[in-house]
């Protein structure tokens, strides 16, 4: 069992002028292998920063992150990141984008081709292997990004608002597609979103974060059978509860911003 555990993690950003901003404070979170966890929070609550720290791309200021019992100090093999649109390398073909990780790790080309073939077929993009990213639609680009993650046989997939730039229809299709993939390969997924419906639809567990400084205010387990539908009777209860939590947080953050603005002015 590869468990991820964040213990009292904090992050302080230092600006060049010497001002410090507490982005995250005392975040503790444990994720079991195979879980699908959504991190839900308003813009600026540090959820992306948390994800990048787990992925080893950003150091923590306090606390520690353990992956499989070992402290994370840099990008770990088996932990991969999927960003929003525009994270494909525009100068590489679909196949070369998918094979990027294998190629930098110097996996021999026959093996690389075989694995790329496999996942590219799984995301139904075989016909587009030689295409370049700008020739693809938004949904196809995100399928390439997912294929690029899957080809690594990852234990953990970190997704930072991966569908935020997609239109509603494509988004629904991609959510279904991601669930299919998750049920088939069972990687652990940590999925950052600010969409309540998306979180309830996809996740086993929703971690709700507050803004300024970002911390975890609630964890909600979603006990709904899959496949879920937004029209399910239980769905609305979760949606209502999370909406309330989020609204409270947003209002509080606004109030604090105003107070801060007034005290700054004075």
């Amino acid at each position: 069992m590869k468990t991820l555990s964040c213990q009292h993690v904090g992050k302080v950003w230092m600006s060049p002028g010497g001002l410090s901003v507490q982005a995250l404070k005392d975040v503790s979170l444990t994720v079991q292998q195979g879980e699908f966890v959504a991190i839900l929070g308003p813009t600026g609550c540090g959820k992306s920063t948390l994800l990048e720290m787990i992925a080893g791309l950003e150091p923590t200021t306090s606390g520690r992150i353990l992956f499989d019992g070992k402290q994370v100090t840099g990008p770990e093999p088996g932990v991969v990141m999927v960003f929003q649109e525009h994270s494909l390398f525009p100068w590489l073909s679909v196949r070369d984008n998918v094979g990027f990780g294998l190629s930098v790790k110097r996996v021999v080309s026959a093996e690389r081709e075989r694995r790329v073939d496999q996942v590219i077929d799984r995301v139904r993009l075989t016909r587009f292997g030689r295409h370049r990213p700008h020739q693809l639609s938004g949904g196809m680009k995100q399928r390439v990004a997912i294929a690029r993650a899957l080809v690594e046989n990852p234990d953990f997939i970190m997704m930072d608002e991966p569908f935020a730039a997609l239109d509603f229809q494509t988004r629904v299709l991609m959510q279904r597609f991601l669930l299919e993939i998750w049920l088939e390969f069972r990687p652990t997924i940590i999925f950052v979103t600010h969409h309540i419906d998306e979180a309830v639809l996809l996740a086993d567990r929703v971690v709700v974060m507050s803004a300024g400084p970002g911390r975890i205010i609630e964890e909600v387990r979603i006990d709904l059978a899959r496949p879920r539908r937004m029209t399910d009777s239980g769905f609305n209860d979760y949606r209502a509860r999370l909406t309330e939590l989020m609204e409270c947080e947003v209002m509080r953050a606004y109030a604090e911003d105003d107070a801060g603005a007034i005290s700054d002015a004075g």
Partner: protein
Amino acid sequence: MQGTGSLEPGAALDAAPERARVVPSWAAALLKALVPWAAIIAVWEAAALAGWSGAVLFPPPSAFIAFAIQSDFRVGFGRESMTIPVAIVASALRVLAGLAVGFVAAVVTGILISTSKTVSDMVLPVIRGLAPIAPIAWIPLGIVLFGIGNPTAVFVVFMGVYFILTISTVAAVNTVDRRLIKTARSYGASKSQVWTRVIFPAVLPEVFTMLRINFFAAWMAVLAAEMVGLKNGLGMMIILGREMFNTKLILLGMCMVGATGYLVDALLVQIQRKVLWWQQAR
């Protein structure tokens, strides 16, 4: 048909297809480009035919092209004699060699400088002090250093583009999308692989665009170098015309300068489209 929009993939969807196919888009573009030139030449030729007195100093194309054919595309006497095709090739190769060396050197320097904040803080002020010196201003120094010959021309073009392109490489490195770098690192790319496989390809199109913008200044510098020192190439052809008071030769030289410059620029555009296509792609 709305101009070059039809070159975009998928543009066929919003154009009326049966009308769009009557004239191929490249032919329409060529026609649009040629009509104004045809009009200018027609007015010029008509003025000469009508007995315009300026036609002696300003001979129309029919006169200077006939002159080129009569003289068997060979101009000048003795040591200064040259053929027109050789002059064109000499000038074009000089500028292309200088651009190529300047581009490669600038991208390498720019990336090396960017790897260290301290180094870039120290080196950039020097480069920013040298960049404003016009390519033409390097000619005397080039002649002193390399004598009269091709190395001087290449040196002048190189100095004309190197500093500017180094600055633009540093600027381009700073604006590479952070997500691409993070993605690469998350997939196991080492620090040096991030430079070679992400930052390097990401900056190329932007630096190449700067190269194209600076090509014209470099081209002028080559011609000026040919006029004052190198004694061959298209620049020298114009000077020969002046020395012999042969306005046909002067205008022929000017036309060749324009046409060759246009073709080299078109070549750069093709390189940009076919080799470094991912900038317009984004």
